[in-house]
């Protein structure tokens, strides 16, 4: 691999120094020299320089002043100041205003100068690499955002049309007309839609910045129950909400959390049970909201309790996506909430959550 050629610009009003520098380093670097600040500027305008060396004492302008003058026009090249004097004032000025990487006294020692230029080039490369990485990340981030948006529209729109057709087939009493085929189409479409929605929730949870708005738990819970009990009219809900305090929180994430838990409580009922029940209790105080969602459903095996919050964990009996509770946990992490679960195969499952009040 070729080592990249470092482009060095050396500005000094003493021609002898320029010659000496060239003589010492021409094999190591691509060297540009300038006899004045004005000439140096011309070179900077035409060639992408990595390291600039400037003499401090020049007629008309000091090295530090020169560096100051190119702070905005040429921010990238790394600066090294050369001076024949151990001038403490110039040194202080250089550090405070010139954005100078090294300060070297004349006459220079070839090895010291060589090392300084090498280090300066490394610093230059690190700066540029970082900037490229940031730009790359911003681009990826942007693409991901657009990807999420397009999933939610391009991918979901035709699926929703299919669901609409199935719906129409039911209205026209054709649902049973082809054996179980329409039912299978419906099941598959719903499953696909569920996956799309969960994927979106997961990405949005990762990317969206938390925003605090007032939350009315009564209204929110009512809406979520309406939404998820749509396909199930058998489950009875006992909702007790004690909210006399205003509560501020991240409505998107709280919706995701409660929505997933409520839909699970409905979904994982005991098959054929006649008394399906979900109890939701919420108590709001100035510090936090304590939420309990409790069902008398099929319960969770003790050995599974540890794993239910991990991604793609599915129990053998139940056909979940393995995403719901994982997303709940992730969303709670983002808003500093906590969750605990207890379950009994005979009694059902209780989730207890606390969410800090961001008032």
């Amino acid at each position, binding site marked *: 691999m070729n080592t990249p050629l470092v482009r060095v610009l050396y500005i000094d009003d003493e021609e002898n120094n320029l010659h000496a520098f060239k003589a010492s380093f021409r094999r190591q670097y691509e060297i540009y020299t300038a006899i004045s600040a004005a000439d140096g500027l011309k070179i900077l305008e035409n060639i992408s320089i990595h390291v600039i060396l400037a003499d401090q004492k020049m007629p008309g302008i000091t090295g530090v002043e020169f560096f100051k003058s190119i702070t905005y026009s040429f921010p990238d090249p790394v600066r090294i100041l050369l001076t024949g004097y151990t001038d403490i004032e110039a040194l202080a000025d250089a550090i405070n205003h010139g954005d100078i990487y090294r300060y070297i006294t004349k006459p220079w020692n070839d090895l010291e100068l060589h090392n300084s230029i090498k280090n300066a080039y490394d610093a230059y490369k690190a700066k540029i690499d970082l900037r490229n990485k940031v730009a790359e990340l911003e681009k990826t981030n942007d693409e991901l955002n657009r990807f999420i*948006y397009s999933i*939610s*529209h391009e991918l*979901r*729109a*035709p699926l*929703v*049309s299919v*669901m*609409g*057709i199935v*719906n*129409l087939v039911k*209205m*026209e009493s054709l649902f049973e007309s082809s054996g179980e085929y329409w039912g299978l189409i419906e099941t598959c479409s719903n499953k696909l839609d569920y996956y799309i*929605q969960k994927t*979106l929730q997961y990405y*949005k949870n990762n990317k*969206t910045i938390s925003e605090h708005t007032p939350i009315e738990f009564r209204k929110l819970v009512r809406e979520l129950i309406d939404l998820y009990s749509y396909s199930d009219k058998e489950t009875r809900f006992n909702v007790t909400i004690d909210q006399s305090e205003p509560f501020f929180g991240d409505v*998107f994430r709280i919706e995701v959390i409660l929505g997933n838990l409520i839909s699970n409580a409905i979904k994982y009922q005991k098959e054929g049970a006649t008394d399906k029940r979900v109890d939701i209790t919420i108590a709001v105080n100035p510090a936090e909201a304590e939420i309990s969602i409790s069902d008398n459903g099929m319960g969770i095996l003790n050995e599974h309790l540890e794993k239910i919050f991990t991604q793609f964990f599915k129990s053998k009996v139940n056909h979940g996506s393995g995403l719901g509770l994982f997303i709940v946990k992730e969303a709670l992490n983002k808003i500093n909430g906590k969750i605990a679960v207890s379950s009994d195969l005979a009694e059902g499952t209780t989730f207890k959550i606390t969410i800090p009040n961001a008032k």
Partner: protein
Amino acid sequence: MLSKKKTVLLIDDNEVDLKINSKIIEISKLFEEIVLCQSAESGLTYIHQNLNNESLLPDFILLDIQMPDMDGFDFLERYKKLPTQFTDKCLVAILSSTLDFGDIQRAQANPFVIRLLKKPLFLKELKDLLVQYSV
């Protein structure tokens, strides 16, 4: 108003959805006339053409959000400039498959939008909405 036929205007760039939703409404007999427009522009043109012909104007509009060129929000911007004799009598609901939080918030915040309905359209939801607003 007995002489006027109850009319719904469906605006959606997706031909399939337009077909599905008009069929659902047709079966439901909730409206006597169903006008279909495949773009927000053509929806506006239809309204403009019939501003003097009240019998053809819609009582209810179901509007999609995501459409090329003029989207649902652009449509609403133009809609609010229509004469109030018309807009006072006509209700607008959004019908969209969007899950985008921003779109949903924006739609619900719009003073002309009475509800955001999610695709697929369920007859019960539409019926409940129309009863609530006595369309």
